[in-house]
């Protein structure tokens, strides 16, 4: 009995020693840095408390040419609104494109399923910067897409430098992140529920709306998170595909960092963090309520 107790003691000691480095690391390099974002956001160059950075985010204005007239706009609110708009559009397109595809994968034979899942992840391993750059050469006015269209006698399209081009880049980069979570929920779905719904007189649309969609909702929610978060905070895509005309919130943070305005960069990051936290909480709550109903 005595030996077994000491063995137990040794095991709990091992456990504590095993967990110690990571616990310290997680506090030092995950939690403390987030505190520094808030600290920098609320201090000035001399590390004295100030709300100027946050105020600047909400009140800074600049002039934008709107046809012949010059409009005054709230610089960062405009950028933030634009990031939100493009990210939401991209997320919706990813959902529209990805949902049927996730369903197709889940319906396929197990062999085809694992093959398709591997295949859609492959493009993700090509460097993100170069993927975006490749889209630039495709969408350019004299690019590959337009030479293709011209070959078939179709009028060339002007895409590069528009918000549409930025959306294409976002959809391309994040589509697999929408497909995967929806697929993994659908793959576990009980086939008999669908059959039962048909037996009870549901038509195809009814089954989709009343059975498949509600059951796949957890996957949809995590898919939305996984596309919305990176696309709202991206930089580079808009620089390359939007010709730098559509500054996004990520670009704003990056340019303040490059200009060494660390306190203002932190303020923008802080606002972004808070908005994302609130957004995710709302999304999760909506999902929980739907699950409870």
């Amino acid at each position, binding site marked *: 009995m005595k030996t077994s107790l000491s063995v137990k003691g040794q095991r709990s000691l091992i456990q504590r020693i095993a967990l110690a480095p990571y616990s310290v690391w997680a506090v030092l390099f995950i*939690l*403390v840095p987030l505190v*520094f974002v808030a600290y920098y956001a609320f201090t000035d160059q001399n590390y004295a408390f100030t709300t100027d950075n946050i105020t600047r985010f909400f009140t800074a204005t600049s002039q934008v040419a709107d046809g012949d007239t010059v409009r005054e706009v709230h610089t960062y609110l405009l950028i933030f609104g634009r990031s939100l708009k493009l990210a939401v559009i991209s997320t919706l397109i990813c959902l529209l*494109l990805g949902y049927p595809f996730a369903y197709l994968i889940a319906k396929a034979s197990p062999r085809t399923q694992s093959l398709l899942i591997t295949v859609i992840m492959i493009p993700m*391993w090509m460097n993100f910067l170069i993927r975006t750059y490749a889209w630039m050469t495709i969408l350019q006015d004299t690019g590959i897409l337009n030479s293709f269209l011209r070959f078939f006698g179709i009028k060339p399209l002007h895409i590069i430098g528009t918000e549409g081009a930025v959306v294409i880049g976002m959809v391309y980069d994040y589509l697999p992140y929408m497909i995967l979570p929806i697929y993994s929920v659908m793959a576990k779905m009980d086939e008999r529920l669908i059959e039962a719904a048909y037996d009870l007189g549901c038509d195809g649309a009814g089954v989709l709306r009343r059975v498949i969609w509600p059951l796949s909702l957890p996957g949809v929610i995590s898919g939305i998170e996984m596309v919305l978060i990176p696309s709202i905070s991206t930089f580079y895509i808009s620089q390359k595909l939007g010709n730098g005309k559509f500054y996004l919130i990520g670009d704003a943070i990056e340019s303040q960092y490059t200009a060494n305005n660390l306190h203002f960069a932190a303020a923008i990051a802080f606002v972004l963090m808070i908005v994302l936290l609130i957004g995710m909480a709302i999304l999760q709550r909506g999902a929980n309520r739907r699950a409870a109903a």
Partner: protein
Amino acid sequence: MKMKPIAKVYTALLMLFLFAPIAILIVFSFNSAKSLSVFSGFSLHWYQELLRDSETLDAVRNTLVLAVSASVISTLMGTAAAVGIYRLRSRYLRAALDTVTNIPMINPDIITGISLMLMFVFVGRFFGAATSLNFGTMLISHITFCLPYVILQVLPKLQQMDHALPEAAMDLGCTPLKAFFKVEVPEIMPGIVTGLIMAFTLSLDDFVISYFTSGNGFQTLPIRIYNMTKKTVTPKMYALATLIFFVILAMLLITNLMDANTATDVQDAKRRRNTGTQ
């Protein structure tokens, strides 16, 4: 169930969308001319150019040193952490650790990058250093974003493990430490190896966090690529991306093969143990 024609067309279109840019990129890395949109003929010219580019070769070396160090350290620390988390009895502590572990995976990279950079700069200024960002800060950052993925690979293997095994080993006279290394480590090895390779590929591919936490002197491949895209881009950059792409694919393929093998090994061992047959 067989795919309907419309499903086939849809799959084909989606694959075209996903793979056309990759295919174009790889094809143009072999372009004999400088253009990225007009193909003039096959040539290995840009690959040869790449081998002569000393800045890129330096970046290759930096990236490998960083990825190897970050993946080894995060695998050791992450595996130990998984063992600790697995045995944790306090539900409260467990939930707290899970939440913290999730942060780097949920937070946008730009926030992880900025937050680490701010801390490094602050600490650097505190100690009066002129530049506080260097290889060390990058290594810390890479370990930090790799750790959750290692833990997530190892933890399920521990949960799948037969709980009686380490107990039996200790009943037979093993010390807890010996039981851990002789019984538990072999059982969770597939998870450790997958975690290691995952950490390696993530570190290799990371741009955003590296961008914010690297100093001026230390350039990894993704940062090198970023600096190259600021100027006129030649197919040389495509050649570089193509090479990295195939290295990563090869590694993933190896993991897949290895994991499937180790998985069958483990199953085979289990069957033999349970049935007592050889």
